């Protein structure tokens, strides 16, 4: 299945802004994070098709995933 992934802020560094790639059926958001080599604590906001999701969310063909890092400074 084809899934589009959009990365935000620092997650883009050395990766991409937006990309579409093939994943095996039944893949989850966690599989994308692992595939991209993003350390566990660097993603805290996950959206699939604009709706809040989490690492365990199962993906379907045509889904769009957005990943954000945490921001906490003031």
């Amino acid at each position, binding site marked *: 299945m084809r899934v589009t992934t959009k990365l935000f802020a620092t997650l883009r560094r050395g990766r991409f802004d937006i990309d579409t790639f093939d994943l095996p059926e039944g893949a989850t958001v966690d599989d994308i994070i692992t595939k991209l080599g993003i350390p566990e604590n660097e993603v805290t906001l996950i959206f699939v098709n*604009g709706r809040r999701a989490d690492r365990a969310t199962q993906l379907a063909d045509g889904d769009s995933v957005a990943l*954000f890092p*945490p*921001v906490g400074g003031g």
Partner: protein
Amino acid sequence: MKELNDFLSKNAQGDLIPWQAQVQAAEELGLSLRDVEKAALTLNLLPARYQRNRQTISTADQLKLFESKVAVIGCGGLGGYIIEELSRLGVGTIKAVDPDVFEEHNLNRQVLCRVSNLGKSKARAAEVRVHEINPAVKVIPIKDAFSRYNGMKLLEDIHVVADALDNVPTRIDLARVCETLEIPLVHGTIGGWYGQVTTQWPGEGTIQKIYRDCAETQGVERTLGNPAFTPAVIASLEVAEICKALLDQGTSLRQRMLFINMLDMEIDEIQVC
């Protein structure tokens, strides 16, 4: 009071009260500038300093802002600009909460920080600065850290709270206290080229939703730091949200968050519900 009202009516230029007249009224009648400002606004006269607020903020709304109490939690990068803008806007009471003193590494971005106040209290600096800009505004400086233990007391009687904190756990505590007290919380946070803004209204639990998967105390700012422009941008968006919440105008960032990327100049809106 009649004496003051007569003085103001006599010295009004159109419906504006010049600063000089405000000062003279206070001196001659033994009142505070704050008393005079309130009396002027109540008479539907606008202190001339606010004349460029007009069309955006009516005199009746200016009185509403004058009677409003906003707590700014954190007086660093975000908090400094928020306090500066609230005082120029004419918000009558600002509670400025921060346990820290200024350090050299604050000079790159914290508008309240200057060479001459290094080592001095940030909360107290807020009071000094506001007094220079708008002496009719009352600042209540609190040199203490916000916590779940003192939060209820600190936010008593506050209409809107500004989140200008620098860490995630205290922010979650602040959001919980605001939920309990049913106070709107305008959230802003920054890191490097990036920032985010939203407003948590009572019962919506927005901040906890945003940070529910964040086990860390800090975010990207830990490695990126914060340059001069990011706090200014995010603080200004927060103040716009505060102003609207106080005046019940416009459309709030309710259950949606702006994520701002100043490196690529992108603004994304995220649904938080």
